[in-house]
Every structure is written in C-alpha cells, then in structure tokens.
C-alpha cells in the first residue's frame, strides 16, 4: 500500500513534467527542453507503473521494453526528415496496437465488471481502428499503396454494416465479458476492418488529419483505460493527447476550409480532373531565372510538398543565403497545410538550418506580397491556387492561400503541369507574371546556384 502511495505521488510528478513539457513547446527556443521534460515525465510514470503491485515476472517485461526501445530508436534515427509524416503514422499505429493488446490482456487479469468491460472494449476498438487506420495512412503517405482516395459504390453501406456489427458484437461481449467469449474476436476483427474501410476513401494528403484524429482517439482510449484501472496519470496524459489531436485536426480543417466530415467522407481528391483553363504557359530557363534573381531585391520562397519530394530544402537555403549576400531581402512563406503535415515545411527548413525568424506565416506575408519581386513557388500547388480565391465552383474554393499571383513575378518550380493533391488545375501557371521553371525542384535551384558562383 505504501509503495502504492509513492507510485501515485510520482504520477503527480510526471503529470507536472508533461504539463511543463507542453508549455515549453510554446516557443521554438524552449521546445527541445520541453520535449525532454515530457520524456522524463514518461520515464517516471513508467518506473512508478513497474512498482505497481501484482507484477509477477519482470523478465518478459524487460524483454518487451528492450526490443521496443531498439526498434523505436532505430526507426527514429534512420528516418529521413522528408518522410516524417509516414514515421508518425507508424508510431501512431504501434500505439494503437499497444492499447488494443492492453485491453485484451486485461481480460485475463481475473473477471471484470461490465463498466470495466466497456472501457476494455473501448480500448480494443480504438486501438484496432488506430492500428489498421495508421497502417493504411502510412501506405498512402509513403505511396507504397495508391495514395488517391479509393471510392467504390455502396461503400457507405458496407461501413455502416461493419459499424452495426461492432455495436452488436460489442454488446454481446459486454454482457458476459471473458476472454473466452467468442464475440470478443468478432469485435476485434471488425475493428481492424473498420480501420481500413474508413481510411481508404481518404486522399493521401488528408492523412495528417486522419492521423491526428486517430491520435486524439488514442488519447481518449488512454483516459478510458485510466478509468478502468483507476489510474490518474493515464487520465491526465490521455486528455492532454486528446486535446492536442483535436486542436490540430481543427487547425488543418480550417486551413483547408473544409469540414472534418468533408475530409473524412467526401472522398476528396478522388476525382483528379479539374476543368481546363485557357491562357499560355511561359516556361523559363535556369539562366534567365538567374538574371531575374540577380536583379531582385525582395525574394519570397513558398515551399510545398514538392520540396519534400525533391529534398530541395538544403539548396533552397543555399540560394537564400546567396540572394541575401546579393543584397536581397529573403523570406520563406509557410502555408499552414503546405506539405503533408502541419508544420511540415518548418521542419524541413529547420533541418536546412534556416533560422526560424526568416519563416513568415500566410497572414503575415499576404498583406505585403505586392512588394515581393520574385515569389519562388517550390513544389507547392494547391496552397497557392488562386481559384481558391476567385472560382466559386472550384472544389477548394474558400481555402485561404498565399497570394503569390499578386507578387511582381512568380517562378513555379515543378516537373510538369500536373495538378496538386486536390486534383484542381491551377490558373496560376497561366498567369501574366508567372514563369514555369520545369524540372525537379532540387536540380532547378542547384542550377541557379551554380549560375551565381
């Protein structure tokens, strides 16, 4: 009992650490220490958890931790910054697997009340959906499976059937909860299936929404578990995670001016043809681009998913420095949903050592975009698509964008005339003041850089 008390007090400590950790995430200067604090909090909680009574054999646990630590750290080390979204998806998935297994295993911890059974069920359900959902998300982000939205007739019906099935099976399980109750396995299987079914109809670029949503669910699952084994820290940590997930989801939806429902159910990005726009495309050679850069006194880079694909962040940074030496004012305008993750571009540019003072947000740059001599659009497309502003019946109408088309000159670096994630054609490419610099972003920029030297 006394050790029990100590464990609980250390839970309080770890809660404090989590809170401070999140607080310090409020500024890039303190964020890293914040993350460290929060990991300390986790450590404390884990140790406290280990001391909790009734643990018979530590060997196996140690084994589990060992393997997990190895795998986790290797993954974290080796992943390329550009494929961060996939990585997060995978981690999220393993989190789901964990909560599923915890729920399941708890059943073997002796017989359970039906409230506990319910929370267990919740853990299993959310866990299962998170697991398969995250895996599909991973597949789409890493493009190992078709990243387009997969929609087929009667999808709704199938999903509803699965849902009903889960409810029924879940109920039948709750009334007599035991590991031998066959309905448990039905529920489990259906949960896994549901995870797949709900994510495949969602387009690749919307995966971040899915992930953070699933993440907030796993937070909720943790809370549920906390109630089941009445454990404070699970509740606190769980609700912190839940809040984070929900807020991020909202931010993304707002930034795309789409409702969560639209993101989840509309099969957005499935139809890949938008209506064609007349007007002529003006390509530009690297050399001509160089001359214009030479003359420019105010350059603004607008990175997008393409920069991640091309891994162009380093050369971009290099070009930025050259231009600054050349007396130009250089800034990087970041759209909230540029790339495949909120803040994706910030991370990439940070990797390339771009000081975060140079990064400006959409609302900052738009008012003074007229003073920009050259807006360099690096593999961004939807987030700079003027039809979101002008064209009432464009699917992305109303999505706030960076108004590069209002800059004096616009360079668009991309490999083709292909449309972006949303599949909507982009009038920007046909604009008066637009020059298309075709080719892989990295090579194009590198070309300009070499011109300078």
């Amino acid at each position, binding site marked *: 009992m006394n050790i029990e008390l100590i464990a609980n007090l250390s839970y309080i400590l770890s809660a404090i650490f989590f809170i401070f950790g999140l607080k310090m995430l409020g500024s890039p200067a303190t964020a890293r220490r914040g993350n460290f604090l929060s990991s300390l909090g986790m450590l404390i909680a884990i140790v406290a958890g280990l001391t909790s009574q009734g643990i018979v054999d530590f060997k196996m646990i140690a084994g*589990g931790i060992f393997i997990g630590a190895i795998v*986790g750290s290797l993954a974290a*080390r080796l992943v390329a910054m550009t494929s961060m979204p996939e990585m997060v998806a995978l981690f999220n998935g393993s989190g789901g697997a964990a909560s599923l297994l915890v729920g399941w295993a708890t059943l073997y911890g002796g017989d359970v009340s039906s409230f506990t059974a319910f929370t267990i069920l919740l853990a299993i359900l959310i866990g299962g959906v998170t697991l398969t959902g995250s895996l599909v998300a991973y597949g789409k982000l890493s493009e190992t499976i078709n990243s387009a939205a997969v929609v087929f007739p009667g999808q709704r019906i199938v999903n509803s059937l699965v849902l009903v099935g889960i409810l029924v099976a879940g109920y039948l399980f709750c009334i007599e909860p035991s590991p031998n109750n066959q309905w448990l396995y039905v529920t489990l299987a259906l949960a896994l299936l549901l995870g797949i079914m709900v994510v495949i109809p969602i387009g690749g670029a919307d995966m971040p929404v899915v992930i953070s949503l699933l993440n907030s669910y796993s937070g909720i699952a943790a809370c549920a578990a906390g109630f089941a084994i009445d454990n404070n820290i699970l509740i606190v940590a769980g*609700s912190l995670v839940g809040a984070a997930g929900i807020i991020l989801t909202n931010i993304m939806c707002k930034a795309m001016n789409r409702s969560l429902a639209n993101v989840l159910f509309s099969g957005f990005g499935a139809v890949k043809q938008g209506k064609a726009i007349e007007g002529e495309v003006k390509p530009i050679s690297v050399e001509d681009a160089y001359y214009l850069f030479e003359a420019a006194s105010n350059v603004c880079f607008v990175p997008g998913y393409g920069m991640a694909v091309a891994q162009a962040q380093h050369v971009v940074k290099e070009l930025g420095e050259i231009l600054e030496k050349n007396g130009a004012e250089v800034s990087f305008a970041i759209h909230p949903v540029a790339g495949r*993750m909120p803040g994706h571009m910030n991370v990439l540019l940070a990797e390339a050592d771009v000081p975060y003072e140079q990064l400006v947000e959409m609302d900052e740059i738009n008012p003074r975009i007229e003073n920009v001599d050259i807006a360099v659009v690096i593999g961004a497309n939807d987030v700079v698509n003027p039809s979101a502003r002008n064209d009432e019946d464009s699917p992305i109408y109303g999505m706030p964008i960076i108004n590069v088309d209002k800059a004096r000159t616009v360079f668009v670096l991309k490999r083709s005339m292909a449309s972006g994630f949303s599949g909507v054609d982009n009038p920007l490419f046909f604009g008066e003041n637009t020059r298309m610099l075709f080719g892989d972003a990295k090579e194009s920029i590198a070309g300009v850089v070499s011109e300078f030297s």
Partner: protein
Amino acid sequence: MDIVFLTFILVLSIFLGFELISKVPATLHTPLMSGANAISGITLAGAFLAAGAGDTDLGKWLGVGAVTFATINVVGGYMVTDRMLGMFKSKSEGGK
C-alpha cells in the same frame, strides 16, 4: 467516490490541455504531433499490469506484446521529436 475524483481530474486536464496546446505556434505543429503521439504511449503504464498480472500464458504474451509496441511508440516518438526540435535554430545559433 473514486469515480468523482477521476472525473474531476479528467475535466481539469481537458481544460488545461486545450489552454496549453492552443498556445503552440504553427512552426512546431509537427513536433507537437509526434510529441503528443509519444505521450499517448502512456498506456505502457497500464500494459505492465496486464503483462505482469496475466494468469494465463496468453494473457502474459499479450501483455508483453503491448509493452513492446507501447515502448516503440514512446521511445520512437520522443526521439524523433527531439531530432526535429534539435534542428530548429534561431538566427543567433544559426551559424553553427
């Protein structure tokens, strides 16, 4: 009574969560995402009970599986977050 306390704690920490997170700037949203994800690995604390208390073998193995996956989530999540945050530099430190 416990249920009351737990609910109280739930409510308070939900509010706290919203206050804290809504202060995180857009720049840090990816780290926030992976960081929060790592925190959700707290289920680990629960996993132990499962892994330890399991009477049957199957129960044990499930528990161990849970521990393993949770650890991946925690360790991986924190390390990757740290790696990302390590790259954020202000002008002053920018040089090195």
